[in-house]
């Protein structure tokens, strides 16, 4: 399929979705309070934008997101790679990982508040936690999956030492897998942003909570759309970088 065709189809899908939604909201089948119509969103955006709330909330969430994402991704890739490289370390941490892994990030909210207070740090911590696990497992599998023959090649050509092996063979070989972990973390990170802010840390999630308390559902929808757009933009930008970095793939 041509890029233009696929772009046109994507746009058509979005328009159809919005039209259906508007039709359901306008028809009166469901009370307007329960489903705000999408046409109410632009007005909500204007009022939020004029008061400066929208920009402030986006910036606040973005900063939690970026700090949490980079911290979680860096640590996740590092620990995942280390566990995949060194069997002893892997065995040592394996059960700790099994115990901590099933605890969802939101279950850490009480500790996040106790440790960081209702603060930026708490939100970033929760996001980092979510992103960490995704990247940990993705990197672990990716590094494990690097072709052993390429490692042997490195040894045969004098690149068997830890540093050249890591940077010339293992990490480039694992890069496609590591990048898909990063991409998955990108999405999960935005979900955690909202969850983390629901308990009062300034940002998109908090504003949604406030608006829903006032039954201002059109404002809730505005921020839902905002998150969707922010995710869409970050995913799109990531894909641009990824396709450039992986241009050696067929």
């Amino acid at each position, binding site marked *: 399929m041509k890029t233009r065709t696929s772009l046109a189809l994507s746009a058509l899908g979005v328009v159809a979705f919005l039209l259906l939604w508007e039709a359901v909201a306008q028809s009166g089948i469901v009370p307007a309070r329960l489903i705000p119509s999408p046409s109410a969103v632009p007005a909500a955006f204007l009022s939020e934008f004029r008061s400066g709330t929208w920009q402030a909330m986006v910036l606040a969430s973005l900063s939690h997101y970026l700090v949490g994402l980079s911290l979680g991704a860096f640590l996740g890739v590092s620990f995942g790679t280390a566990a995949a490289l060194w069997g002893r370390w892997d065995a040592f941490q394996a059960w700790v990982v099994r115990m901590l892994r099933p605890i969802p990030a939101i279950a850490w909210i009480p500790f996040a508040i106790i440790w960081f207070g209702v603060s930026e740090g708490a939100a970033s911590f929760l996001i980092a936690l979510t992103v960490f696990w995704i990247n940990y497992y993705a990197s672990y599998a990716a590094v494990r999956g690097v072709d052993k023959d390429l490692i042997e090649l490195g040894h045969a*050509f004098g690149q068997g030492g830890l540093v050249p092996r890591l940077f*010339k063979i293992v990490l480039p070989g694992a890069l496609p897998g590591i990048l898909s972990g990063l991409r998955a973390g990108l999405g999960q990170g935005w979900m955690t942003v909202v969850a983390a802010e629901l308990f009062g840390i300034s940002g998109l999630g908090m504003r949604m909570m406030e608006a829903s308390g006032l039954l201002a559902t059109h404002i809730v929808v505005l921020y839902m759309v905002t998150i969707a757009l922010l995710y869409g933009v970050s995913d799109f930008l990531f894909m641009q970088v990824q396709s450039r970095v992986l241009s050696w793939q*067929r």
Partner: protein
Amino acid sequence: MATVNGAPANDAVSSGAAVIDLKNVSIGYGADAPPVLVDVDLTVERGSFVAIVGPSGVGKSTLLRVVAGLHEARTGGVTIHQDPRPAHRPVGLVFQDARLLPWRRVVKNVQLGLEGLPVSRAERLRRAEEALKLVRLDGYARRWPYELSGGQRQRVGIARAMAVDPDILLMDEPFGALDAITRNNLQDELRRIHRETGKTILFVTHDLEEAVHLADRIIVLGGTPARVVRDVSNSAGRDGAVFREQVEQLRLEIADNYSI
């Protein structure tokens, strides 16, 4: 160089000095498993082209890895230029599957072995381009491996091995996965490279015709555990009665010792 009565012993070059020396080498996988290859005594002279043949499973490829210092012999000693240390051996390895790094362009793949050496960036590039010229792939430097055919990839593998200017080229069934026409071409190219550079070549193959066509000495491995069952010098060339007779002779030899 050794001298006799003050006169230079120039026959050390012409008749060939020992480059590779294996003494009583045996090879096995795992500590408890019985050895697969035993009693290998082998001296390879400078500039010679030696083929190692035998059925699969006799440890041909592992023997090559032992010479390269990538696999430890269970017993016995390996020296390259009388040096037993396994690291930094002056060898270039060529694999059956070309084994290029897919994330490096051709020219960077060829430079891999040079990156561990004290060689400037410009010099690395110069030597990589020279090696690509040797395998007739100048003009392909900026390509990605996936853009190459199987034969071209194998040429890059040879260039990568040659770029470090090794004394010995170790080749592990390098043409085994290629179609017949490409294989013939690359065999001729390898003969030419051998002629032009005078490298010592140790060439593992299970294809007797390939061995007879290429090598000037053929080592046959066979039996259980495998050992050297035949060590013949060869000049049968490519075609004709002599060639076929030599191939047939070796085929019988291997069949007699085939017990795997």
